[in-house]
Structures are given as structure tokens and as C-alpha cells.
């Protein structure tokens, strides 16, 4: 039983990272109907920037907010300069543009920082009223132990989810973004700056993705191709949860993360096992999609003649 809980916890932690990146994907998809293939590379790039800042300042908590700001700026820049000219092009064209962006970011990161994997720090520990947060080591929770970094990831995922919920529900700008996603034409008529909202959406998405990058970089070493696998799982998570549902993204991420771990552990080694965990996980995703073609939380699209 211990092993089971261990796998569950690990699955939930990696699943949260998938969920965060899936959330970033969903934020962009909701407003522009575009699958952003460069999402993972944007996160990788900002994580490298974070590494440089950390090297320079030596302080994790200086680096963290700075990276989020820079990521937001990067997202805004990409939306204004690269996505805006193809805003009205067919969806496939915009997907190809994000693939081009993928190539550029990946290549420039390799060029600037080199391909050698680098260790990335975990958030250092903080003591608040005698309780330890973040840092190294593991916490004993009954049936199993949970490492502090896994706990950090879970806390961040839940925290970001809650913050985004409050942002979208209770701030005027959040409302404006939701309105833009639902009906851009009507929103523009109501005086919402639709273009600006799209820029804000990309900034937000890039920042959320950056958190995913910063958190996973400690688990898998920091290197240019590090987000490729994560991105694919994040796509699976976003689709599983429903591409227009932020809650679905996180839930989908958790499901994918846990499934992946359990499949790797509990399926027969001879013909499935850890080598095939990606395949089996994706197969399960497809099976779910066959029952619910727009994901678990996705809005059904009504077709009108």
C-alpha cells in the first residue's frame, strides 16, 4: 500500500506541473482558439532567464517575481509582434506560427546558455511560526512521505488556481478578458479594448507557464529540450479537461500525472510497464475523449445550420 500512496503523491506533484502548463495553454486557447505549441519553450526560456538571475543575485525570492514579470513581458511581446499580424488568419496558420516560435526559442536558448544540463534550485526553506515551508527533505504524512518540493508544487498549483479564479471573477479586467473570450465583437462594442485583453491573456499565460518551468526545473535538469515532454503531457491534460476550462486543465493534469505513474508501476512489465506509460496514458485520454469529445469539463459546441 505504501508504494501505491508514494506513486499517487509523485503523480499528483508532476501532474500539477502538467496542469499549470495546461492552464497556460487553456488561457490562450480560450481567447484566441489557438493551441500554443511554443508554450513549453516560452516556459523553458524564462526558466533559463531565471537561472541567470539566480546566478547573478543568489537569491531565489528575488529571482522568482522578476522572472514572472519578464515572462509576462515576453508573452505580451510575442502577442503584439508575432501573433497580431496573423490574428485573422486560419487557425492552422497560427499554429504554424507558434511552431516557428518554438524553433526560435529553443534554438536561441541553446545558443545563449548551451545544451549542457544545469541544476536548478528549489525554493529555499522559510519558517513561519515554527512551521517549515519549501526547502529540502520530506514530510511524514501517515502512509507515506511527501518531499517538500512536491508539496511546494502542489501548493503553487492550488494557489495559482485560486488567484486566477479571484482575478477572473472579481476584477474588472478579469471580467473584460472573459467577455473577450466569449464574444469579441460584442465586447468591442461595449468599449472593451479587445486587442489589449488578448495581450494581457498572453502575459498571464506566459507567467503561469513560467511558474511551471521554475518548479519542474528542479526535478528534471534545466536544459533546452526539458519542456518538450511536459508540453505533450500538458496538451493531453488540457484536452482531457476540456480546452476551454481552466479547472479542467488542472484536473486533467492531475489525472494524467497519476495515471502515468500508476500505469508505469502496476502494468505487466513484459508487454507494457514503464516503457509504455506514455502510450497507455494517451490511449486512456483518447478513450475518455471518445465518450466526451470536448473533454471532461469542456463546453459542448452546438452546431448551427
Amino acid at each position, binding site marked *: 500500500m505504501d508504494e501505491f500512496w508514494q506513486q499517487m503523491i509523485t503523480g499528483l506533484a508532476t501532474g500539477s506541473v502538467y496542469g499549470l502548463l495546461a492552464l497556460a495553454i487553456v488561457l490562450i486557447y480560450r481567447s484566441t482558439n489557438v493551441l500554443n505549441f511554443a508554450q513549453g519553450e516560452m516556459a523553458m526560456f524564462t526558466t533559463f532567464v531565471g537561472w541567470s538571475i539566480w546566478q547573478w543575485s543568489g537569491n531565489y525570492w528575488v529571482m522568482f517575481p522578476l522572472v514572472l514579470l519578464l515572462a509576462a513581458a515576453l508573452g505580451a511581446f510575442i502577442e503584439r509582434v508575432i501573433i497580431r499580424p496573423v490574428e485573422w488568419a486560419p487557425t492552422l496558420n497560427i499554429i504554424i506560427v507558434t511552431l516557428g516560435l518554438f524553433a526560435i526559442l529553443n534554438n536561441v536558448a541553446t545558443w545563449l546558455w548551451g545544451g549542457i544540463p544545469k541544476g536548478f534550485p528549489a525554493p529555499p526553506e522559510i519558517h513561519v511560526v515554527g512551521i517549515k515551508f519549501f526547502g529540502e527533505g520530506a514530510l511524514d504524512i501517515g502512509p507515506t512521505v511527501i518531499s517538500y518540493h512536491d508539496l511546494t508544487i502542489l501548493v503553487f498549483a492550488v494557489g495559482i488556481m485560486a488567484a486566477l479564479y479571484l482575478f477572473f471573477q472579481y476584477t474588472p479586467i478579469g471580467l473584460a478578458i472573459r467577455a473577450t473570450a466569449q464574444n469579441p465583437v460584442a465586447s468591442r462594442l461595449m468599449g472593451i479594448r479587445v486587442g489589449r485583453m488578448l495581450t494581457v491573456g498572453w502575459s498571464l499565460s506566459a507567467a503561469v507557464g513560467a511558474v511551471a518551468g521554475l518548479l519542474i526545473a528542479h526535478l528534471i535538469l534545466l536544459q533546452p529540450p526539458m519542456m518538450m515532454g511536459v508540453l*505533450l503531457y500538458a496538451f493531453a491534460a*488540457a484536452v482531457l479537461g476540456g480546452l476551454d476550462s481552466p479547472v479542467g486543465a488542472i484536473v486533467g493534469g492531475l489525472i494524467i500525472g497519476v495515471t502515468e505513474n500508476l500505469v508505469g508501476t502496476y502494468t505487466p512489465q513484459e*508487454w507494457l510497464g514503464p516503457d509504455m506509460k*506514455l502510450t497507455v496514458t494517451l490511449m486512456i485520454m483518447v478513450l475518455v475523449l471518445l465518450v466526451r469529445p470536448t473533454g471532461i469539463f469542456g463546453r459542448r459546441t452546438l452546431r448551427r445550420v
Partner: protein
Amino acid sequence: MKRSRPRPTGRLVVFALLAFFLFWWVPLSHVLPEWVPVSFGTYRTYQASLIAMWAIVALGLNILTGYNGQISLGHGAFVAVGGYTAAILMVDYNWPFPVTIILGGVIAGVLGFLIGIPALRLTGPYLGIATLGLALATPQILKKYDGLTHGTQGINVRTEVHDQVGVLRDFMHDVFHLDFNNDQWIYFLALFTAVVMIVLALNIVRSRIGRAFVAIRDSEIAAQAMGISVSRYKTMAFAISAFYGGIAGGTYTQVVGYVSPESFNFLLSINFLTTIVVGGLASILGSVLGAAGLVVVPELPGLVSFIPGASLPAELSWAFYGAALILVMIFAPYGLAGLFHRMMRIRPAQLLRRLGTVYESGVGALRRALASQGQSGSGPEDRSSEDRPDAKR
């Protein structure tokens, strides 16, 4: 009833261009070997063969995505099926290569049909990601079930096409005094396959089936109302498309001579989609242009070094490729084929007139610049009367 036919000149130009793109490499390397580096010959031949192979996949994917509107990010899987079928049958069972290529296509087609059935329920990005799952699973499956596929080490296939075209070889030797080496024969094999598949595709898209595909893409409900069986034609599109993928896979095995699980990773599948969008969706010409573009563009940074004084860091070649993709999408939203058709619409006289306007405005701007430099104190009135050429017209 009189059928409207495409203008013969337009088609002639299209096919001349096709022939040029598929042919120009080999004659160049054959006729002018001293003009180019030593390795040019075989490498360019190999590249031209690859273009032919990519064109076949692009045609199939374009039938599915461009004409039928179903996105697939998993065509690498069908290419892998075709490639492995050819490799296994040739190496382990000593089958002749033409049979293995066709059989690879048929097996991939059946697989495509089977995948097309569940794909009926999915649309747009959901279908895209589900098929991306197929592309991701392919290398893992190939590695895991190594009894059949030889596992991670892959299969080496050395096709001696040279030895199997006896009559044709003697004919070329006796009549034209041309002796092709094995690579060149493989190139002609790939080219022949590509031409057959192009003609087949042209016929499919102009037939009842092709029109049904387009009708379904534009509106499933309207197509249904016209009596088109949506599910039948959508699975058919998947099967045809996968058949193309399988044929391309068999060609790949002959051209590259080696298949391994990593030859068919998911980036390959994504590149196929890039090929047809860059080339032009729902365009046969676009598929071929896209294939040529995708094989050639990554090399362009290297070509820059031929210009004296110019250089581009070699490490940035992939970024260059990405930038090229973005620029094509911004300036040619209908792909290279769209660009081509737009250029075809320009009449020579019109072009001359336009060039004249550009020239005049250029001269005008120059004169204005000179005038403002020479007589900086002059008022706006005499500038406007003197420098605008169109004011006199």
C-alpha cells in the same frame, strides 16, 4: 453540358514548375559536377529523393486536412507502418521492393481506416492532440515490441535498385549513354512513385469523392443534406491519406536505407503538418512546393556563407527556419501555392506598369530628398509643385 476547364497555360506552367522542382537537382549534379563540391552529387540526389518522399506524405495529409478538414498530427505513424513493412519484408523475408512498398501502403491504409472510425467523434484541436498521441506512441511501440521491429537498433536496408532494373538500365546505357548509380536509380524510383501519386491525387480531388470531401469540410450538415454519407467519406479520407503515408514510408526505406524508432518521432509528424500549411492547404501544387521548401529551407543559412562577407552563426539555423515559417505565414497566408497563384495573376503589362509606378515614386522620393537637402529653406509650396510626378499627369 460544357465543363469549365482550368486554363491550359496555367496547368502547363504548374507542371513545368513541378518538373523543375523535382528534376533540377539531378541534372545539375550530373552535368556540372565541377561547379559544385564533390559531395554535391550524391547528397543532392538524396535530397531530391527526400523531397519526392515528403511530397507523397504531404499529398496524403493535404487530402485529409486541406480537402477534408480533419487535422492530423500523427501521420508519422502511417509513414512508420509503411517504412517498417517494407524494411521487415525486404530484410527478413527477402521480398522484392516494389511489392513491399505497395503492401506497406495498403496496411497503413487499413490502419488509417480503423483510426478514422473513432476520429469521427473528434474535431479540431481535440482530433489534433489525439492524433499527436498516435505520433508519440509510435516510437515507444516500435521499441517495445522488438521481436518484429528489431527494437532500438533499427533495420538496415540496402536496396540495390541498380541490379533490379536490368532492362531499363541497358536501355538507358545503349540509347542515351547514361549510366546511373544506385542512388540515382533510387531517386528515379522515388520520383516515379511521387508522379504516380500526384496524378492519383489530382484525379481524386477532381472526382465525386474529392467534391464530397470538400463539401464535408465546408459544412457537414449541408453535405449531409445533399445526400453525402459524412462518416463514410471521412473514414475514406483517413484511409486514403494513410495509404499515401504508407507509400511514402516504403519510399523512405529505399531512400534512406535505414529505419529506427527515432526516425519516426513526433516532430516528424508535426513537420508534415507544417509542410502542407507552408505549401498551401487544399492544393496539390502546394504539397509539392511545401515538401521542396521543408527540405531546402533548413539549408539556406549554410548557403549564406557563399556570399562573401556575409555569415550567419551555424548554431542559429533552426531559429532561422522558425523565422522563415513565421514570415511565410504572415506574408503568404495561403502558403507557397497561394503566392504562386497570386504571381500568376499578374499580367506582364500590369507588372511593367506597377514597376513604373514604383520607379516614379522612387525617383520622386529621391528628388524630394535632394531638394530638401539642397534648398533647406524652401517653402512647402514649390516642393509640391516640383517633385510630385503624378501631379503633372
